[in-house]
């Protein structure tokens, strides 16, 4: 047992120097209550049983581990396996977390659900579980993102959620998170805040990771069944880092399994127009935790850029910051054009259209496979499906649909 990784975060919510509770005083009471409730339910058999059942019957788990035969042949290297989170209800891994958090909200007797969203995937996943539980749901979304992701905005409305446009700052995901925090401060008594990634103050990074860890647990079992051993490498895209943490966490003690987190290289690190917080950011404090943050000379958080709205976030989950510094995981970047090419490649060779976020992982997975031997196996997390991105791709390529 390698204690050094699996016991994190520590009791104060830190992953080494990262994470923690850099929250405003008004929120402490509910963060403490949330932490206590979560710690209790984490080991509660009934709660875990309910969670498992919802993942099976509502989400459709387990998601398959798919052998990408034609893609493997094309790369002439390691075998490429895809973890099919795109087949989940609502089309991405985000639902794993919202199914878990809404059960917690219910258990805590909260009546009102709030969330932030960038691409709209987490907003849709939250609106979905809120509808199922009959709870009021308000989703904060940057005005710029509302424009970029019109279909998801309408989906949320169909599900009965109220989408509130955020006009402050850069009008994107980080500002939506700020606004959700402000809402929470003003409605601490009856409101549950469902954060969509492994960021935020403790216990969110731990909790969101745990709810997504079903991904990695299934991959372990499926690898044993299909390959007869654990894979040699794992690859996942990193926005805030929830699909990556969910895949990585159950493998953390298996040092022979390499882990690669793929950040959005945007138009290239050298242009400054990207969202690669670990590769090009510096240590700071944002949204309640210490982590790598994209900020300027003066410490102002800067606007990020990515072809995929879901990776367009200037921070990163604190556990990734820790895994990076300790060397347990490697963080690489894939640029917009490489992701777009991978989107087409996967669509044409396997008949699977990936989300543009996931296309970053696919692009790096192909590169990695090529550099490895045919005896080796890699698992790429296909975190979501690409239907939501069809308009973006058409726009970029000058096609009107």
């Amino acid at each position, binding site marked *: 047992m390698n204690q050094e990784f699996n016991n994190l975060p520590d009791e*104060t919510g830190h992953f080494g120097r990262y994470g*923690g*509770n*850099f*929250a*405003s*005083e*008004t*929120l*402490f*009471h*509910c963060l*403490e209550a949330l932490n206590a409730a979560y710690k209790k339910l984490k080991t509660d058999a009934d709660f875990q049983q309910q969670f498992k059942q919802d993942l099976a019957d509502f989400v459709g788990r387990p998601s398959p581990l798919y052998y990408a035969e034609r893609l493997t042949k094309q790369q002439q290297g390691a075998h490429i396996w895809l973890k099919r989170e795109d087949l989940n209800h609502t089309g991405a891994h985000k639902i794993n977390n919202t199914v878990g958090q809404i059960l917690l909200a219910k258990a805590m007797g909260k009546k009102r659900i709030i969330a932030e969203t960038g691409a709209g995937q987490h907003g849709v996943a939250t609106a979905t579980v809120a509808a199922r539980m009959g709870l009021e749901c308000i989703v904060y979304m940057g005005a710029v993102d509302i424009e970029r992701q019109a279909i998801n905005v309408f989906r949320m409305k169909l599900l009965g959620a109220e989408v509130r446009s955020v006009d*402050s*700052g850069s009008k994107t995901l*980080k*500002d939506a998170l*700020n606004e959700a*925090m*402000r809402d929470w*401060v*003003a*409605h*601490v*008594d009856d409101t549950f805040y469902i954060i969509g990634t492994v960021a935020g103050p403790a216990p969110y990074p731990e909790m969101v990771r745990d709810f997504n860890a079903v991904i990695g647990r299934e991959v372990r079992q499926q690898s044993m069944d299909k390959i007869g051993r654990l894979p040699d490498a794992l690859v996942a895209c990193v926005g805030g880092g929830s699909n990556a943490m969910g895949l990585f966490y159950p493998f953390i003690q298996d040092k022979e399994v390499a882990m690669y987190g793929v950040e959005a290289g945007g138009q290239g690190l050298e242009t400054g127009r990207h969202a690669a917080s670990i590769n090009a950011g*510096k*240590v*700071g*404090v*944002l*949204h*309640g935790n*210490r982590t790598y*943050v994209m*900020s300027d*000379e*003066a*410490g*102002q*958080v*800067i606007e990020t850029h990515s072809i995929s709205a879901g990776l367009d976030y200037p921070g990163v989950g604190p556990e990734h910051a820790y895994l990076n510094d300790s060397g347990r995981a490697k963080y690489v970047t894939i640029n917009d054009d490489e992701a777009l090419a991978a989107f087409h490649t996967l669509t044409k060779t396997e008949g699977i259209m990936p989300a543009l976020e996931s296309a970053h992982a696919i692009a790096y997975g192909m590169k990695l496979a090529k550099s490895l031997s045919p005896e080796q196996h890699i698992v790429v997390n296909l975190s979501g499906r690409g239907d939501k991105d069809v308009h973006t791709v058409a726009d970029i390529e000058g096609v009107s649909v």
Partner: protein
Amino acid sequence: MNQLLTETLSNLNHKKALIPFITAGYPDPKMTLPIMHCLVENGADVIELGMPFSDPMADGPVIQKASEQAIKQGTGLKQTLQMVYEFRQTNQTTPIVLMGYLNPIESMGYEVFVEQAARAGVNAVLLVDSPPEESADIQTHLKAHNMQQIYLVAPTTSAQRKQLICDVAAGFIYYVALKGVTGAADLNTDAVNHAVKALKATTQLPVAVGFGVKDADSAVAVAREADAVVIGSALIKIIDAAADNVESVLQQVGEFMRPIRAALDSL
């Protein structure tokens, strides 16, 4: 070695302290210094100077907008410290509390920040996202330079945390008058006075009340128990509404401050 902030608040002779908040560099960098002097001339006992930040999570729309505008015009942490330095050239008696968020300070480095802030003449800092649990490091540096860290106590703060906060706090305790962001409207002054009274039983430090105090009436209402009142968003709104020149801004700021000062002095 005594602290200017502590000295000022303990020499009030039962007078209530008035602490206006302004965002550094708003509405433009040249106006900050004249506004600061104007606040002192019209009864400010302490000045709270906001360090503009791109992601002011605990602030309402008024201070958000002021921060955005200040940043756009080039005011960051460095420029804010420079303004304090210039203010100190002619005023060595009004304590200055810097208020803001951690990221710009993390970016500069705690040691460099504290050194430069001390040199500029800052007396205390109030960092919204640096609760006692996370501030051991910066506290060490602050203490080495005889600077104080102010902490918030909220209506939701448990008795146990109140004790924890009072144990590490210095200067004064800042009681957040409402569950919400700065500038929100619905103050329940009875509840505030009740909470402040209880708080004063836990600490020797003066207690200031802020968030939602907006005029002479609300200031007087919360000053029944509190030792000081902080007024931020309402003052920023006054500055925002004034015509775009120094004279008009200063005139409006003076007219806003004087009745509040008078009302507090009549208590």
